[in-house]
Structures are given as C-alpha cells and as structure tokens.
C-alpha cells in the first residue's frame, strides 16, 4: 500500500473512526431508503416496503462488520482498534480499572525498586571503572571457603604466561598515615601494580600513573591521590604533581590524581590514595600485611570467561607443581566484575542469598496481585457475558474476543507500567536515602546510585507484560465455557453462576501466599528482636571507641608500647573517664580459629584470641570471676592468658583454672601460656554466633604490637556528649603526628552489625503488609460480587423467612471456608520457607509459635472483616426489590 493509503488508514483507525462509522451508517441508511422507495413503487405498502428492503439486504450488522473488517484487514489496524475499544471499556467501569491499575502499579513499582537496589549494589561497576570485559580472580576451596588474596608469585606467573586474560592488575589494601602541614590523617591506601589504572580504564586528571619499574628505583616513594583528597586536603592546587608528602613517616612524591569518584575497584575497600606494589615500598612503609594480593583483569577480546578461567586453572596447576611451597587448597575462579563481586564480604556471600529471598518475595507478590486483578476482571467479565454472547452470535470468532480481552489487559498494564516507573523513581529518590541514613544502617560509606536505569525500566516492562498475560488468561479461559442461548434468553443477573472454582482458587492462592509473606516478615522481626535483646554480658552504653594510627609516632614495637601506655594514661586522666584500655588493630577479632589444648595429645578446642591491654575488662565492665587482670609488669617466663568462663569449664571442668598451663599453636611446636584470670562470658566481639564464643586473651604488654592501627576503648560517665571532642583533643595534644582514624560509640558499632537484617526485615514487612491488604480487598471484592449476583436468591430466602443473621452467617461460613484452606496451605508453605530462612536469619526456629499465632490472628481478623461487610449488605436485601430485579 502506498504511503497515502497508510496515512488514511492510520488516520481512520486512530483519529476518525467514529467519522468513518457515521459515514458507513449513512451509506447503508441511504441504500435502505432507496430500496424502500423502489419497493413502494412496485406497489407494496410503506411498512411492508421497509421490511422487504431490510430482508433483501440481509444482516445489516454483519454487513457493517464485514465492511469494517475491510478497513482493518491488517493485524496492526485490528490491534489498534482493539486498543481503542479496550480504553473505552476501561473507562466505562472506572472503579475496577482504577483499582486494578493501582494494584499492578504498586507491585511492579515495589519489585522494580528491589531489583534496582540489587542491580545498583550487586551488578554495577564502581565509579570511574570504564574498561570492558573485566573479571575478578576469586579463589574457592572445596568446602566453600572463599579467599581473595594469594601470594605475589602467583600473580607474576599469571601475568607472564596468560594470554586469554590480559592485562592483569594486582592490588592490596592497607591503612596509612599521611602527614601534611595541616596535620596527620589516617587514610586507606590501595597498594597496586603499575598497570592498575590502565587495566581498569581509570582516567587520571592530573599527572600520570605508575611506571613499571618506578618503585624499584631508589629515587623515592610515589603516590597517586584520590580526587577528593586533592580537593579537600590540597585545595585542588594546580601544582599538585611533584608535591612532597609524608606517608607513614617516609617522604614521598605525588605523581598523579585519579578522576573524581574513583575510589578503587571494590565497593568495600575504598581508597584515598594509591602506592606502587613492590616489596621495597611495603617495607619502607612498614605495612605489616603479608605479600598476598588480589587480582583483577580483562579478558582478551574474543575470549570467553570459561576459556580464560580454564587457562588460568592450567597455569595454576603448573605453578603448584613447580613451586610446592605455594600450594594452596583453593581453585581459581573468574567472576565477572562488579563493585561487589568475588570478595568474601557479607554482601558478596550473603548478597546472593538475600537476592534469592527477594526474588521469591517478588514472585509471590506478583502472583498475589495478578490473582487479585484477575478476579476483578473476571467479575467484570461476568457482567459482560451477555455482550460476549451477542458478539459471538453476530459472527465474532472466539479468537477475536480473546484478542480484544488481551488488548484491554495490555492497556491496563501499560498504564500501570508508567505509574510503576514513576513510583520506583520516587522510591529511589525518597525512600532509599531514608533507609540508608537510618542509624542502624550506617555501615555503607558510599550510597550507590539507585535511580532506575534502562535495565530496571525494561524489567518493569517485562513484569507488566507478565501481568497482562496473567490477568487476561483468566477471563479468556472463561469465554470457553459460554453457552450462547442461556445468556441470550435471561437477563444479566439471572443466571446463578454456582461455585466458580477459578475465582475461589485464586482467593485461596492469595491468602496462602500472604500468610507465607507474613510469617517470613514475622520471623525476620523476631530474629531482629532476639538479637537486640541478647544480653551481651556488659553495658554497651557509654563506651567510646577511638582508632588511631601510631606509625608516625613510633618506629619499634617497644617504643610503640610505651607510646600506647602514655596515651592510655592521658586518656584516663580526662574528667568523666572511668576506664581506658586498648587493643591492637581496628577491632576485636571474632574468628574462632585459635587452637588451645591442655596436653599435646589432647584434641584442641577452638577459641577466639585477642591481645588486650591492662584494664580491658574494667573498660568493658565484664567482671573477673577468678584470678586477676593483666598488669603493666612484663613476665619473662611463659605468657599469661585470661580465658572466659566457658573456655575454662571446657578445659578444666570442676577445677579452678588459675595457674594451669595451656598449649597453643601447632601440636609439634606448642607455645605455653599460664592462666592468670578467668572472666565472665560475654559477647566481646559481636553477636554473630550462637552462644558466646570461647575467648582467650593475651597481654599486649608482654608482646607489644608493631606501630600501626590501635583501638582505644574508653568508658565514661553517663550523659557526657562532649566526650568525643575531649578525647580527640587529648590525643592530638599527646602526639600531633598520630591521626584519629575513627571515633564512634560502641553502641553504634554493635547496632550496625544488624543493618542487613534490619533492611531485610523492613522490606519483608512492607511487602507482607501490602499483600495482606491486597488479599483482604480481593476477598472482599469476590464476596461482594458473589453477593450482588445472588441478590435474587437472597431476596427469596428472606421472603421465605430467613433472618438476616442467618443469612450473614451462611455467607460468612462459605467464604470463611476459603480462608481456612488458605491459612492451612500458607502455614505449610511457611514451614518450608522458614527452614531456608533460618540459614539467613539469626537464632530463629522454623516453627516459632508466637509468630505463627500472630499471623493467624492477623489474617483471620482481616478476612473476617473482609467477609462480614458484604455479607451484611447482602442480608439487608429488600426481598421485593431483589425479586423484581432483572
């Protein structure tokens, strides 16, 4: 067809169809008038002429329809016509349409939000990383343990011999002190191979990145700064390249500045500056980590992930054979790069499981809403049965009817999709920052950009299409069972439908899934409250935690020990401070991996080991049940140790542990330690385990730590908000070269542990609450519609003497049967789901009675209300009106 004709067709279909219809009507009317005139001229009376003319013409409606079919003979035109028709139908029953639209919009919006969160956090690369085909090297052991860093020689071997995976960069992480004129700063540093920036595709806005043999030369240390450091600490100075700085007490030169927002490849290891990765640099900076590095690289163009991984696996095997000292229990695995991929942080390992949970929640809510909307549309379709029967008798094929129903559903879904995208955008701008800024979730330092991008919008569209198909399948299926004649003969309300299995099945489905979501949310909340109410064994309030870097202030372990003692004293003298102590490192270790035993032949018991300063238990407020605390005096003989009561009871049941000797370390080379004190059980390093772990504490005075990070625990009087600035001032006055890395309260630190669970519980509660409301409304709608269609039956029953109370009871008994089935099915599903959830949540049993009881009461009440209201209305039917209604 030519362009002209296309234009006419589109015009007709979209803009002037009513005009075309009017024209056709006029044309046929003229024809009939002419024929009537002809017949009159032949001698028939007027009325007879008209009927004869009609008869000769044949089926007027069919002829018009066939003519229209000529206009819309292409699929596209038919489709457009269906869409217009769909819009008209939807506007005719605005209540149903609006409800359905809102429901679909809400569920799509909620789900796309979750999806965009997951996508934003789990799938996107870090800011500033532009290279394609990046992959992270991950190491996996047979038992599932994941390691990220492996010794440096492994990296050089890969770098030299790999062809499918090139270039490869290596990196590690450390904390350094940078000293400027303005003061000392505790910074996080990335220790990187020279090709790091090039491999990741990061631009440098000033200067250059590292040269290959730069750090080997004796000319001094070089650093690349992060953009914000350049802006904040150097004022964005133009002459930054070549400026001297002091890092960990050593002189260094700035050679470049990275592009803005680039903080490293991984979300959870943000860097403020980068130094080259060589043994010399690390030695000079006294960075005490081992020589293990993480690796990231690009697949060569044309090489698939599997190919590259296979090649690396071969190289790895070769290396292990040539260098038995490098043998490890890990296998190499390539993971496609994203800001959170491949690591062993909580997000990387638990992240997938949480995503699985959310996917299921998503699917459930979609099913619930689709079931609901289907019921609404079925109910509406029931009213249109007569219309359908008439259409079919006029010659419309079943396929045509189904197609027009599909178009209606599509219009609904598109409107809902637009609403949903707006909703999701609003949530990402409004709700998520609220979630992230809540005090309990203060952990993430960088807020990922969560505004919906094309992936999210496409996902929403996919959901919308699924919803369309789901909600139109219901009414379309029903059209198969239409019998023409009964509908043509009786009125709209006359035919009693009988129990409709599909509708009721959908109601049961919704209730069951709502129960499932409610119990999951309930269990999540329960887990949270269990964690919160857990007695950690000490008063967590009024303990300030200060982490400092001592590298710039001391060079040897001994001088570091003296420095720390001095700081401890000075802090102890501050007004309002009760007790002060410190531990080396950023926080107390919580790894249960330290073997202790009584005799060399004994099986070892695993404990958590930490080195602490004297006064630690006083600062924490955990009492000693036997023996004494560490003192400042050093012991030349065996090391002294303090154990928790649980460990003492395990090793020496029914005996006093004081004075006993225990052995630590490997069985062939044990180290001895003497127990000088037993302390009460407490969760010193966090609530993550079931039951307080066994702790063994060593004195940091015996073996002073090397200069580096140290954390002070300061217990102060209640209610002193000025404590933090006073502590900061005191530390600065004691030694200006020592920066404070962080200052926080112990309460905040413990609370932030539960951040992921809190997010999970909150989201589950929102979804569950929404589902409950939706399911209740759905049930209400079904009962109401049933009631309306059975008006005649009710009127009859009332006329025959039934009391309204009897009627209400009978209606409610019928609908409550559905509720009962739904609850039972829901509980069965919940028990199954809870066993899976128990792996993600903390401390819950799958059949937690209070939760199930609560859910039962909640759902039963909601369902009761939903059934009662329409039942009451049905019982009020005036029998005279009902019997006369058609």
């Amino acid at each position, binding site marked *: 067809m030519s362009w002209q004709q296309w234009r006419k067709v589109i015009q007709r279909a979209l803009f002037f169809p009513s005009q075309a219809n009017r024209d056709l009507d006029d044309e046929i009317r*003229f*024809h009939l008038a*002419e024929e009537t005139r002809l017949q009159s001229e032949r001698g028939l009376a007027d009325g007879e002429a008209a009927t004869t003319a009609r008869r000769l*013409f044949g089926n007027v409606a069919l002829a018009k329809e066939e*003519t229209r079919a000529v206009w819309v003979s292409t699929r596209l035109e038919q489709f457009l016509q269906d869409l217009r028709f769909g819009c008209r139908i939807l506007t005719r029953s605005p209540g149903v349409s609006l409800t359905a639209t809102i429901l679909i919009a809400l569920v799509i919006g909620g789900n796309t939000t979750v999806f965009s969160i997951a996508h934003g956090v789990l799938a996107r690369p870090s800011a500033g990383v532009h290279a394609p085909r990046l992959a992270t090297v991950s190491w996996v052991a047979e038992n599932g343990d994941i390691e990220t860093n492996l010794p440096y020689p492994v990296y050089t071997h890969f770098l030299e011999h790999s062809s499918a995976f090139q270039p490869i960069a290596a990196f590690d992480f450390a904390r350094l002190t940078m000293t400027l004129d303005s003061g000392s700063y505790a910074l996080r540093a990335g220790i990187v191979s020279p090709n790091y920036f090039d491999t990741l595709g990061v631009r440098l806005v000033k200067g250059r990145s590292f040269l290959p043999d730069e750090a080997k030369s004796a000319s001094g240390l070089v650093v690349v700064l992060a953009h914000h450091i350049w802006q904040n600490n150097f004022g964005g100075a133009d002459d930054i390249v070549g400026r001297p700085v002091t890092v960990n007490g050593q002189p260094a030169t700035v050679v470049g500045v990275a592009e803005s927002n680039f903080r490293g490849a991984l979300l959870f290891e943000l860097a403020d500056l980068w130094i080259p990765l060589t043994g010399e640099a690390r030695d000079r900076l006294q960075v005490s980590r081992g020589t293990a590095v993480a690796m990231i690289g690009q697949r060569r163009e044309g090489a698939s992930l599997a190919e590259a991984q296979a090649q690396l696996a071969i190289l790895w095997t070769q290396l292990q054979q040539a260098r038995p000292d490098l043998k490890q229990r890990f296998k190499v695995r390539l993971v496609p790069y994203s800001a959170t991929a491949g690591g062993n942080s909580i997000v990387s390992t638990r992240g997938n499981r949480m995503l699985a949970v959310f996917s299921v929640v998503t699917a459930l809510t979609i099913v619930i809403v689709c079931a609901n909307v289907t019921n609404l549309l079925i109910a509406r379709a029931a009213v249109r049965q007569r219309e359908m029967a008439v259409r079919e008798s006029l010659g419309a094929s079943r396929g045509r009817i189904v197609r027009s129903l599909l178009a209606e559903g599509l219009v609904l879904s598109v409107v809902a999709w637009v609403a949903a995208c707006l909703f999701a955008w609003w949530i990402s701008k409004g709700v998520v920052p609220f979630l992230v800024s809540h005090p309990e979730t203060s952990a993430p330092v960088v807020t990922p950009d969560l505004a919906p991008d094309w992936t999210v919008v496409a996902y929403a569209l996919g959901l919308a299409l699924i919803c369309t198909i789901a909600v139109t399948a219901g009414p379309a299926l029903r059209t198969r069972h239409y019998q023409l004649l009964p509908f043509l003969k009786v009125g709209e309300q006359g035919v009693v439908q009988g129990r409709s299995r599909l509708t009721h099945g959908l109601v049961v489905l919704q209730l069951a899934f709502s129960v499932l979501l409610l119990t999951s949310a309930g269990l999540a909340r329960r887990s949270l409250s269990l964690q919160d109410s857990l007695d950690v064994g000490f008063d967590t309030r009024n303990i300030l935690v200060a982490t400092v870097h001592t590298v710039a202030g001391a060079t040897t372990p001994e001088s570091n020990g003296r420095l720390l003692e001095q700081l401890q004293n000075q802090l102890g003298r501050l007004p309002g401070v009760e007790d002060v102590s410190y531990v080396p490192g950023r926080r107390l270790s919580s790894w249960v991996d330290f073997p202790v035993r009584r005799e060399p032949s004994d099986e070892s018991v695993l404990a958590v080991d930490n080195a602490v300063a004297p006064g630690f238990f006083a600062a924490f407020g955990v009492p000693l049940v036997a023996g004494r605390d560490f003192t400042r005096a050093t012991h030349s003989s065996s090391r002294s140790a303090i154990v928790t009561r649980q460990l003492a009871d395990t090793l020496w049941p029914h005996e006093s542990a004081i004075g006993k000797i225990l052995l630590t370390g490997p069985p062939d080379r044990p180290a001895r330690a003497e127990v000088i004190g037993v302390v009460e059980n407490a969760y010193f390093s966090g609530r993550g385990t079931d039951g307080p772990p066994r702790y063994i504490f060593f004195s940091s005075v015996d073996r002073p730590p090397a200069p580096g990070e140290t954390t002070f625990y300061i217990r102060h009087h209640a209610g002193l908000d000025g404590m933090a600035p006073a502590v900061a001032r005191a530390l600065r006055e004691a030694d200006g070269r020592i920066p404070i890395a962080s200052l926080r309260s112990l309460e905040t630190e413990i609370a932030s542990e539960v951040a992921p669970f809190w997010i999970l519980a909150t989201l589950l509660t929102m979804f569950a609450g929404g589902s409950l409301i939706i399911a209740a409304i759905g049930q209400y709608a079904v009962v109401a519609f049933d009631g309306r269609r059975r008006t005649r039956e009710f009127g009859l029953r009332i006329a025959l003497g039934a009391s309204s109370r009897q009627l209400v009871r009978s209606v409610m008994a019928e609908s409550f049967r559905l509720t009962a089935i739904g609850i039972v099915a829901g509980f069965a599903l919940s028990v199954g789901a809870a066993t899976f959830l128990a792996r993600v949540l903390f401390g819950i049993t799958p059949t937690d009675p209070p939760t199930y009881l609560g859910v039962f009461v909640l759902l039963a009440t909601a369902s009761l209300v939903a059934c009662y209201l329409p039942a009451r209305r049905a019982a009020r039917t005036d029998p005279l009106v009902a019997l006369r209604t058609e």
Partner: protein
Amino acid sequence: MAKTRQKPDLLQGTLDLLILRTLQWGPQHGHGIGVALRASSEEVLIVDHGSLYPALHRLERQGWVDATWKISDRNQRAKYYRLTATGRRQLAVERSRWTRLSAAIARVLGPA
C-alpha cells in the same frame, strides 16, 4: 448471486469485475450499482447487498475507485463511487482474465 464463504477468490474477483464494469458507465452509489447489475443482466444476477458494500470498500481501499459524498434529492447523504485511472486499467486486466477463463472452461466442457 448468493455469496458463500467457501469460495471467495472466484466469486469475489467476479463481483469486483462487475462493479468496475458498471462504474464505467459513470459514477453511481451502492444501491444504484445493484439495480444496474440486475437490469443489465436481465434479472439473472441479483447481488447480495450484504456483500456489495464490503466489496465496494475494498475496491476503494485498493485505489480502483474513488468516492465522494453528495446530497440526494431527498436530502440524504449518499456516497457516490467513481472509477479511477488505475481502476480503468484494472478493469481491462480483469476483463481479459475473465475472457481467458471462460474460454478455457468452454473448451473443457467441449462441444455440447
């Protein structure tokens, strides 16, 4: 000429041919075309009016006829169809096709 749905091709094409031929005599509205066909075939061909209009609209869509609206003497709107140049060419084509077809059928049937 009753229309059945089973054999659209043969009869539909024939109806198109007849309509085009009728319009060759001048513009006409739908009813008039039916009357003219009846008259010129001496009451043999009685058009099913229900199939006339779809055919007319199809011809209009294909561009072989053109339509204009006029007011009849009874003050009613009437749609008059007129042959276009393309339609004229198509008429010639259809005509020759029909001649070939009827000759072939005659040959098959053989001498009476």
